[in-house]
């Protein structure tokens, strides 16, 4: 059974999202992204937005695991960190071409997650939360103590090679460029997830999440589909980590820390982890809220905590769930 889902139809089974509508939405979102730097002049704002998009990617990755596998992870930062570290370390040491480093930084966490997923998918609920927490912290401890790898807890700054994939790499550290790159990737990722959820593999994974035993008795293998979901989810986290490391030119053990996993999980839950768009919307809401709460920055963790408590108690389906319910009510009245 899914952890955070009482009642309501899961997004995976909803025929609402027709492929053509999806593509149209994605296209509109992409155009909006390209236009954004021309509409917003404040560099600070763009920089904050860029960070928010990284958060949205990580939150989406955590949420996807809840949506498709029904598993709550407290260790998703492990793959975020792994993506960032793999790239940073490889580039800083000049071990391989930057392009190859990018591929490695994405492939390694994906592969690790797939292998872990073969085992972890069998473990549910609180045990899964503890397990992922332990794995994430183990990675954190390695990054923290292994000084020769990337200067341990000091973190390590590194220079990008002048060109990556033929583009001037300094552009990637310019917020008005990175915001478009990150946004484009986020939109494409969400589109990809929606397509996966509607694919056979995605639906079989949803069936396994719902009732793994019965899935076996209707003839499906129940280890590979959830492991693929782990892999996809880790790939997203790795993309986020890679982007952040590239943008900042800096990696540090905090990229693995459970407080980062936890905050991504909170964004996902608040946005609505049963919906593909939910976690990203949660991340955006926190971004806006943080802007408003500027004066109360001191209280920020408490605000996050309170929002989480209130949302889980009052609207367990999250913001998107609430919007959806409101939308249906409005349509019924009209």
């Amino acid at each position, binding site marked *: 059974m899914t*952890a*955070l889902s009482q009642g309501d139809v899961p997004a995976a089974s909803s025929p609402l999202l027709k492929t053509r509508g999806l593509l149209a939405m994605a296209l509109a979102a992409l155009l909006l992204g390209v236009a954004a730097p021309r509409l917003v002049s404040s560099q600070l704002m763009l920089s904050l937005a860029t960070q928010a998009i990284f958060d949205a990617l990580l939150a989406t990755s955590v949420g996807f695991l809840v949506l498709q596998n029904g598993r*709550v992870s407290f260790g998703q930062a492990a793959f975020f960190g792994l993506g960032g570290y793999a790239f940073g370390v490889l580039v800083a040491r000049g071990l391989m071409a930057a392009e190859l480093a990018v591929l490695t930084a994405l492939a390694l966490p994906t592969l690790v997650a797939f292998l872990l997923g073969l085992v972890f998918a069998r*473990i*549910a609920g609180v045990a899964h*939360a503890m397990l992922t927490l332990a794995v994430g912290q183990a990675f954190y*401890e390695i990054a923290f103590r292994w000084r020769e790898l990337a200067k341990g807890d000091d973190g390590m700054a590194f220079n990008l090679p002048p060109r990556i994939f033929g583009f001037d790499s300094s552009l990637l550290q310019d917020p008005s460029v990175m915001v478009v790159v990150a946004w484009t990737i986020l939109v494409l990722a969400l589109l990809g997830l929606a397509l996966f959820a509607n694919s056979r593999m995605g639906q079989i994974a949803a069936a396994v999440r719902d009732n793994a035993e019965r899935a076996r008795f209707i003839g499906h293998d129940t280890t590979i589909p959830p492991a693929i979901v782990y892999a996809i989810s880790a790939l997203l986290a790795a993309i986020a980590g890679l982007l952040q490391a590239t943008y900042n030119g800096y990696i540090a053990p905090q990229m693995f820390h459970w407080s980062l996993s936890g905050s991504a999980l909170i964004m996902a839950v608040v946005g609505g982890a049963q919906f593909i768009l939910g976690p990203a919307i949660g991340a955006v809401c926190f971004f806006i809220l943080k802007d408003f709460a500027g004066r109360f920055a*001191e209280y920020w963790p408490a605000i*996050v905590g309170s929002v*989480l408590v209130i949302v889980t108690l009052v609207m367990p389906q999250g913001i998107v769930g609430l919007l959806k319910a409101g939308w249906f009510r409005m349509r019924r009245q009209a």
Partner: protein
Amino acid sequence: MAIQLLNGIVYGGLLYLLAVGLVLIFGLREVVNFAHGALFMLGSYIGFTLAAAGHWWLGLLVSVVAMAAVGCLLDVLVFRSLRKHDHIVTVLITFGLLLILETVVTVTWGKAYLSYPVPKLLDGTVTIAGSPFPIYRLFIIVVSLLVAGGLAAWLRYTRMGLYVRAASTNAHVTSIQGIDVDRLSLVVVGLGTALAGLSGVVAGPLLTLSPTMGNYILIDSFIVVVIGGLGSFAGAFFAALLIGQIHNLGAIYLPWAATMLPFLLMIGILIWRPTGFAGSRT
């Protein structure tokens, strides 16, 4: 060497005080309390305020009572009202509480590191195997042993203890047998958080106080709970001693193993026996 062993026991004792609180709460509510480390930290700060004013022992008392009260509130407001929900929802809420408590402490006491005084009565050192050893550390060992002994006696010889053991093994059976799980849980959760307050105060002089001081030890006590056999009181005791020793001896002789071994043990046990956690019983 003897001193090192003793230091391991000191840390193990502190871990035990925290872990056993987690075990108590887990036994009744089938929830892992992520806010436990924050309660440890809050207890420490409350005790510190009085200790800094010269009332060390009063600080201990007030902290324990205050944390017991917080625990009762936690049980009534969160655990009881959410008992029909999936346990992972409750776990998330305790995670939210952790953030709230950290902020409360940051705002009240600031972020600066504070150092907790040692009570006059326990100041100084004794000589053990030819080396000096702080009396205060012996005090920590004594406190954890007293708690362990008292708890064991309570569980074994009182009616309530019997119920707690029954409920920890199987909450359904207990509620069928007509035991008021809610009343029992109020006491047990209160006791668990009171122990978090106690360990916060007792650990104070050993650590420096900061709003995130609970995080590190929380993870270690999670490890203890899992290695101890997911809900076993005796298991938590021995696991705490084990982790205490690994932590201290390992840090000196095998730093790599000391860091990774507890995690690997925890991961291995969770994979081998996930059913120890209620979340996977469904």
